[in-house]
């Protein structure tokens, strides 16, 4: 095996080993020990990914794809799926993000989860989550991809429902699982279709075979795969699970939003670009879904008061940008935004976690206020995250978001419409981000905050939490500098052999977009400052609009009416008209007939010895007569 292959396996198996060890060791491992073990294993993954990256960097750019097969996993007739990993520039980038950001979040959890009753279970799940995501990005065929896809769903279910004593957490976990299962189902169907038509499930084989397929087949397959991506990435119309997923512990939210889970959809779109390019309609649809989601999520985020929910909606919105980018064919831009988003979104969540920790679990930003003086470092970290999210020069979000928007500007008329929508999203992003910052950190300290704020004189957070936030702050600032339009673009050079971009913005377009979008973002921040900090501009009091936003555009209510209620009604009806009379009825009838038969047969048991003797004798006599008569 080559170095790249070895590092791929080490990277994948290290978190799995940790998860198994923590599970098997049980009480023999201290709670702290479980945290250290999980953290070490993810850092080992990251180290392996780094080594693999270096080694891949030394290869010829056209030959940077390596498939390594451990053994043939499934074999039936002509069907064959190996347990094989594909390490190429795209999966290497995902491996670095997943294991890098993931390990920082797991390290942060050591401080955050300190004192929880079930730390071991938590860390085993976290390691499993990282493993699942690595399997998803490293799998070399569609079956392994689907396996990773399902495992990610499982791990997220376990972690969202980590506080299983809270009914709301259990409900949120079930919701996430069911929503994801819809996507898994459409994706599995698409994979069946692709295997049926091309006879193989390996990426390279499917990509070779996809040219010869009819338009309908490719469109159907691409639609099914898009369904999986939409569910996992929480895009409209399967987005409702993501805000509820905030029921999990804060580092879990960070992991779901930054490193694992929601980015899987974008990875899928980029990885399967040869399929999507054959199905232009689906590609346009993906871009449109991204555009709609980024606006809708941005609007909803404006009225949320829960600090984690604001950040959650911002994730939906940012993933919308990535879908937009992947949909118009700006693959490296989408991946670039995925990376910077992982940095600043993990930063925002982890910093929010410190705030929540300091306020004894409070998440409502109205109960915070004035935290700037109490938690100055956390404030600075949040500010960095917020500025990066809003896309302010020279932070990471600025480079990556504008690279997507510039590609949209360079594309067709359809893409230009998306460009305008994207600019609207930039305004909303700046507005809701700084609303959160101004309300939570600016102004007077609220009564709640005065009462509950911990003494922070000995530091704002334990070392493991502070260190993770510090590293992510630096990454959120410098993460975007690896791609500067007109100057250098190592990232596109790295990714282009895997996913050739369909649109290439000129340097002018890039810089024009950057200036315009930053102007808009600054406008958004200024407006947020006027409304929520200076309070000179009153919010327009559109009660209808506010109600619609507070109900998240009535998606939950709609699904309740369209799916949940009819399903319950049908179940009730079937229960009344089929289950009760037929199933339960037949069982009741059996029971009562047996009982009646038993009661009747007890009449024979008189207890009179002579009656029994008479029965015996009569029987004997009858037998004797029969024996003689029919001999």
């Amino acid at each position, binding site marked *: 095996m080559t170095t790249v292959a070895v590092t791929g396996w080490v990277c994948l198996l290290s978190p799995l080993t940790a998860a198994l060890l923590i599970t098997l060791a049980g009480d023999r491992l201290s709670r702290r020990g479980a945290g250290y073990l999980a953290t070490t294993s993810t850092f080992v993954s990251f180290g392996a990914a780094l080594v693999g990256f270096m080694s891949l960097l030394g290869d010829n750019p056209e030959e940077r794809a390596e498939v390594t097969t451990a053994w043939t996993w499934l074999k039936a007739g002509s069907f064959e799926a190996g347990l094989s990993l594909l390490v190429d520039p795209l999966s290497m980038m995902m491996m670095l993000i997943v294991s890098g950001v993931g390990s920082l979040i797991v390290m942060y959890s050591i401080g955050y989860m300190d004192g929880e009753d079930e730390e071991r279970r938590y860390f085993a799940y976290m390691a499993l989550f990282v493993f699942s995501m690595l399997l998803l990005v490293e799998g070399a065929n569609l079956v392994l991809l689907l396996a990773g896809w399902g495992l990610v769903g499982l791990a997220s279910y376990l972690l969202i429902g980590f506080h299983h004593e809270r009914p709301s957490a259990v409900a949120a976990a079930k919701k996430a699982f069911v929503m994801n299962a819809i996507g898994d189902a459409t994706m599995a169907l698409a994979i069946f279709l692709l295997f049926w038509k091309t006879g193989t499930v390996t990426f390279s084989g499917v990509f070779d075979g996809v040219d010869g397929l009819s338009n309908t087949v490719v469109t159907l397959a691409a639609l099914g795969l898009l369904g999986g991506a939409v569910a996992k990435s929480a895009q409209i119309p399967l987005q409702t699970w993501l805000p509820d997923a905030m029921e999990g512990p804060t580092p879990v939210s960070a992991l779901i939003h930054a490193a694992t889970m929601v980015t899987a959809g974008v990875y899928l779109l980029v990885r399967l670009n040869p399929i999507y390019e054959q199905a232009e309609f689906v590609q346009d649809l993906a871009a449109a879904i991204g555009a709609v989601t980024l606006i809708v999520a941005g609007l909803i985020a404006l009225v949320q008061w829960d600090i984690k929910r604001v950040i959650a909606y911002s994730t939906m919105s940012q993933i919308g940008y990535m879908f937009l980018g992947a949909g118009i064919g700006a693959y490296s831009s989408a991946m670039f935004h995925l990376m910077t988003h992982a940095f600043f979104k993990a930063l925002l969540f982890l910093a929010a976690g410190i705030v929540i920790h300091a306020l004894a679990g409070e998440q409502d930003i109205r109960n915070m206020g004035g935290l700037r003086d109490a938690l100055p470092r956390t404030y600075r970290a949040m500010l960095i995250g917020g500025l990066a999210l809003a896309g302010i020069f020279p932070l990471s979000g600025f480079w990556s978001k504008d690279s997507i928007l510039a590609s949209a500007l360079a594309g067709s008329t359809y893409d230009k419409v998306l460009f305008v929508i994207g600019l609207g999203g930039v305004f909303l992003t700046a507005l809701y981000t700084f609303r959160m910052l101004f309300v939570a950190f600016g102004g007077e300290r609220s009564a709640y905050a005065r009462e509950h704020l911990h003494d922070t004189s000995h530091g704002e957070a334990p070392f493991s939490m502070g260190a993770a936030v510090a590293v992510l702050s630096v990454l959120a600032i410098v993460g975007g500098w690896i791609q500067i339009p007109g100057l250098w673009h190592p990232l596109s050079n790295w990714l282009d052999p895997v996913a050739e971009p369909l649109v290439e913005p000129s340097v002018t377009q890039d810089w024009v977009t950057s200036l315009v979008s930053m102007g808009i973002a600054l406008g958004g921040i200024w407006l947020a400052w006027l409304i929520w900090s200076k309070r000179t501009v009153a919010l327009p009091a559109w009660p209808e609009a506010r109600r619609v936003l507070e109900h998240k555009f009535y998606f939950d209510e709609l699904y309740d009416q369209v799916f949940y209620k009819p399903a319950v009604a049908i179940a009730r009806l079937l229960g009344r008209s089929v289950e009760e009379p037929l199933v339960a009825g037949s069982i009741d009838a059996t029971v009562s007939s047996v009982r009646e038969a038993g009661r009747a*047969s*007890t*009449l*024979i*048991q*008189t*207890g*009179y*010895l*002579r009656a029994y*003797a*008479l029965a015996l*004798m009569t029987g004997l006599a009858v037998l004797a007569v029969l024996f003689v008569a029919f001999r």
Partner: protein
Amino acid sequence: MMGPEVTWYLIVASILFTIGALGVLVRRSPLIVLLSLEIMLNGANLALIAFARHQGDADGQIFALTVMAVAASEVVVGLGLIVAMSRRRLPLDVDRMTTLRG
């Protein structure tokens, strides 16, 4: 060694058996029921021995010996029960022992 035909033996055996059976059916004292049972067993034994002689074979005789052994044990248990009942001053009447009624 000629005797009467095997039929005569069988007739005697069936008469004995019937007397015993009637005794079991009509008498209410457990002691008499037990005695009647012995008569039934002896009727069966007679049939076995008659056939054994008729066939010129020892199997039936061995069977009859076994039946006697079983009958002896049965009498021990039965008489034991009856003694125990009379010790407890229970009525010696099979029609009044109906605890097993369903």
